[in-house]
């Protein structure tokens, strides 16, 4: 059965801390892995990863994929209260189906 597992389920940190969110997957015919940030209703796109070992970076956020060990991490450095959200990991199959994890709820305390 195809699945995506995220950990931890929730995380509470103080402003300025660095956090690492994990996403492991077992999906046949892997095509890409995506990270989204969900603050209210609509998830917003962060990164799309297709190749192992190549870090994608946007400001304080970065992500990397390991296709051998079947996982990805999302790092957030110098966290701010605006980073509080649910972070979703999704894997796209070759057949265009997307499998989502249950998300990691991040709370950043001032």
């Amino acid at each position: 059965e195809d699945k995506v597992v995220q950990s931890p389920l929730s995380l509470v940190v103080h402003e300025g801390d660095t956090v690492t969110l994990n996403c492991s997957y077992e999906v046949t015919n892997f095509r890409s892995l995506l990270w989204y940030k969900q603050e209210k209703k609509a998830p917003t796109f962060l990164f799309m990863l297709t190749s192992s070992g190549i870090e994608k970076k946007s400001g304080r956020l970065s992500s990397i994929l390991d296709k051998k060990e079947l996982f990805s991490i999302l790092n957030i450095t110098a966290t701010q209260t605006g980073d509080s959200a649910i972070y979703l990991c999704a894997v796209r199959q070759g057949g265009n189906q997307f499998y989502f994890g249950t998300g990691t709820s991040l709370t950043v305390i001032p």
Partner: protein
Amino acid sequence: GAGVSQSPSNKVTEKGKDVELRCDPISGHTALYWYRQSLGQGLEFLIYFQGNSAPDKSGLPSDRFSAERTGGSVSTLTIQRTQQEDSAVYLCASSGTGLNEKLFFGSGTQLSVL
């Protein structure tokens, strides 16, 4: 439009009534997805349309749920004889090709069944 548009943004209905949720995808996107998200839960896949191919309905939870996509663009998700457990946020997303291969989400419809 510039983004995925969903309507209504909120819907309150009585148990047993039928509801229709609308999704207008990004122009040119051939793939359209419906997901459901219950409070505190992840995204549950419902149905997927790709071009003129037969839709993948494997995620629909019961035969009370149906969806159609007219003219390869606008999609309507219909829930018949709504139940309280249908209360959730219904998210629509579309995707294209290449750099647009990722999912672009609408703002969702919050459905509350009383």
